[in-house]
């Protein structure tokens, strides 16, 4: 069996910044990621969408780089960049020619040191983010389905159950002093990890990190609120009317076991068995045998993968079908696939295929886009577990999963009372209403 060992060197600066370095000489490029321990779950309660709006502000200006100069600096040095806001982190990353590593580290350190943004910058980005919500949610069929709708419907704790993309009125109400306060609260070296992957000497990279980041002051970071969800005991069914949708759809989400438990790894394999690939059980039943739909979408963590989150999470699937089909028929077909997994141990061949698909997709993640995928795994494991070396231990954890554990996991976590279903119905305009928890 092929194996892939990722070289990893970790250290912590005196200000608390955790640093992960992983050399890879395949191409003369370097990938830098800075991950802050502030996801949209814990944004202020009267400011939905604020964590994401704030992320945009990190591109608007810092001590030594004015509006758009950060982006210009990366691009004119031949690199690409972006940032994103997720359940449990906000990240900023660049892929650059490796000789420009120092330039990029200087720039990331500059904006970790402090923001320099104006009322005009904020107003501009409120317009941009408002347009982002329109293009991805409001002006399209199936907008927010199910990636926003399902966590909102399934969870009971506000931190997990609010509209993290944001109500437009909340986004438009944000104030500049709130931006500054948010930065002061969460954007500090002791609340972040820095990951560097690519073509460089470890010693050189470490020297540069020390040079540019060691002088940044740490802060007192507030304790995390309680993010836990109670055990779900009752199936939830929510109807969403969508005036733009031409076909009905169903999304189904099951609360996940806690991360890094044996059941968690078993659920990773259940995702492979149920959803991933043409051989998956849901596809074989719903697409091939019954012709109810043409594809099964979904997986663990609809804004990432099963490794880059920390709090409560769903294993979700969604299916678009025809008006001539009843929702109960689709749900019945799903149950016909899931129930056997709960009543007897899965056959070894199905489990073996799931394992090899998982390993293959893990390697794809690691090789994704110039080292971005590997950087993301290392950053997540450093941020959440203080152990980036987990990346080399994943395959063996999945290998420990037995057919009996798969059954036990399915019994508890693929219970119908552990799931939330959203039925999306095409609707005339005046009947439209946002998804509401019943």
């Amino acid at each position, binding site marked *: 069996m092929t194996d892939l060992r990722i070289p990893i060197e970790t250290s912590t600066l005196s200000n608390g910044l955790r640093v992960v370095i992983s050399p890879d000489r395949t191409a003369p490029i370097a990938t830098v990621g800075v991950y802050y321990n502030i996801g949209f779950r814990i944004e202020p309660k009267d400011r939905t969408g604020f964590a994401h709006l704030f992320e945009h502000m990190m591109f608007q200006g810092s001590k030594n*780089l004015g509006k758009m100069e950060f982006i210009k600096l990366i691009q*004119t040095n031949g*690199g690409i*960049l972006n940032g994103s806001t997720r359940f449990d982190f906000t990240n900023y990353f660049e892929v650059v020619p490796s000789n420009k590593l120092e330039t990029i580290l200087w720039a990331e350190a500059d904006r970790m040191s402090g923001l320099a943004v104006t009322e005009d910058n904020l107003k501009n980005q409120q317009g941009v983010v408002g347009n982002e919500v329109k293009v991805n949610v409001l002006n399209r069929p199936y907008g927010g389905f199910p990636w926003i709708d399902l966590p909102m419907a399934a969870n009971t704790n506000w931190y997990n159950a609010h509209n993290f993309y944001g109500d437009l009125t909340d986004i438009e109400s944000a104030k500049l002093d709130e931006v500054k306060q948010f930065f002061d609260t969460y954007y500090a070296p002791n609340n972040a990890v820095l990951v560097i992957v690519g073509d460089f000497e470890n010693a050189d990279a470490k020297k540069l990190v020390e040079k540019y980041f060691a002088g940044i002051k740490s802060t007192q970071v507030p304790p995390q609120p309680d993010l836990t969800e109670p055990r779900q005991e009752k199936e939830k069914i929510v109807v969403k009317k969508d005036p733009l949708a031409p076909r009905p759809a169903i999304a189904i989400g099951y609360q996940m076991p806690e991360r890094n438990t044996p059941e968690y790894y078993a659920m990773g394999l259940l995702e492979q068995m149920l959803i991933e690939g043409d051989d998956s059980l849901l596809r074989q039943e719903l697409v091939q045998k019954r012709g109810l739909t043409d594809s099964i979408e979904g997986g663990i963590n609809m804004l990432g993968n099963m490794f880059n989150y920390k709090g409560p999470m769903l294993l979700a699937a969604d299916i678009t079908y025809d008006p001539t089909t009843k929702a109960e028929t689709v749900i019945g077909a799903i149950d016909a696939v899931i129930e056997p997994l709960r009543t007897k141990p899965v056959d070894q061949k199905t489990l073996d295929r799931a394992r090899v698909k998982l390993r293959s997709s893990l390697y794809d993640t690691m090789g994704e886009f110039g080292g971005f995928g590997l950087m993301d795994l290392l950053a997540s494991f450093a941020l959440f577990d203080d152990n980036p070396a987990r990346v080399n231990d994943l395959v063996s954890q999945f290998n420990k999963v037995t057919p009996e554990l798969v059954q036990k996991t399915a019994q508890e976590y693929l219970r119908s009372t552990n799931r939330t279903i959203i039925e999306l119905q095409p609707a005339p305009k005046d009947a439209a209403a946002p998804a509401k928890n019943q």
Partner: protein
Amino acid sequence: MNTTIKKLGLLAIAGSVLGIAPAVAQKQMPPEGGPPKAFTVPATETYTLPNGLKVTLVPYGIIPKAAISLAVDAGQINEGSGRVGVASLTTDLMKEGTEKLTAQQVAEAAARMGSTLEIHAGTDQTKLGIDVLQEFAPDAVKLLADVAQHPRLPESEIDRLKNDALRQIALQNSQPQTIAVVRFRKILYVDHPYAMVVPTEADIKKLSLQDVKDFYSGNFGAQRAHLYIAGKFDGAAIKQAIAESFGGWNKGAARMENVPVLKPQHVLDLTDRPGAPQSTLIVGLPVPPSTSPDAVALGVTNALLGGSFNSRITANIREAKGYTYSPRSEISRRYHDGYWAEVADVTTQFTGPSLKEIFGEVTRMQKEPVTDPELKGIQNYLSGIFVIQNSSRGALIGQLENVDFQGLGENYLKTYVAKVNAVTSAIVQKMTQDYIKPEEMTIVVVGDKAKIADQLAPFQPSK
């Protein structure tokens, strides 16, 4: 449909952006970094089997996987009138098993190697792909060869697959961006096959199994195919597997060409979408193909104008005005064909102002040469991106397929960066003047007519 949303959501930058203000004197300047390291495009080995099948092997990287892709010159362009949609229906049926294996057996065989077999038909080519753990690469070649050469094309599945196609048509036609592309391509390509973006329900309903069989036998064959393998694999074992599994493939019918002759269509086309909070815009016109001597300079011009973060239109309508989230310009290409277009979803009330700014930026670039730092910046950007574009097995195959498909020659990738860096500001100005002409552009708008008709009036071409 939802997978794309996942990738879109909550990113700071979907399109592009730019810096304008020079750094103030008392600020620190960024460190330069070290001297650039050499980059050479990974070496490839290409050969041709006696039946005409071309093969390209690219050993690459440390990830223990091999990507295998078969590009066949069979696409929408080959459908013929009355058979619109048959290329895609053929690929759907090709996934339904081979003479020896059922669909489920094919799916399980691919899964045991860590993959799923993908088949997609495009405007000019059908691509079959599989991306497996390295130890399975020879077996994966054999599986892909079986599917390509001996598809079962079962009658029993055609009604289900046609129904799936009808569902997909409804879904696609509900997206404003798709509606806009459909209009734009129809206006530009009229009755050429490239005009078709989404088939009609009637197109699909009239297709028969015989149409699929005719399309397959008339267009699939060794002399119209090119097999690419990139990543980690055992070279000798792969070559043997290729010879054994593809050596017996029929040569097939020769490839035919049908390059459209395009004329600019200066019209304003509005599709009403009552209540839409945004207007979806496509503004563009035909440009020379990628075989043109101007193609690289045109690519540089596009990157400056709207095709990068660092571009003028994006800096204007996103970062200065806040009218939109994800504006971009692109050069969209098919075989020896192409058009330039600016694409954006803009706030309804700023539809007219957005168009004014887009045309204003094009005109400005026609009138004034870009500055040297701006040009140098975009050249560095395109040179850097080129390295990233050649730094994964999948990306490498994509690059090589494009070069072979368009017939750009084996030196294209080796000389691309030098050509990018040879472009001058005078050339950029000339490209904009010669090819990006506002007075010849097609303007497609999908939005709330009641709210935007007045805003659009100034952009209505005079008869």
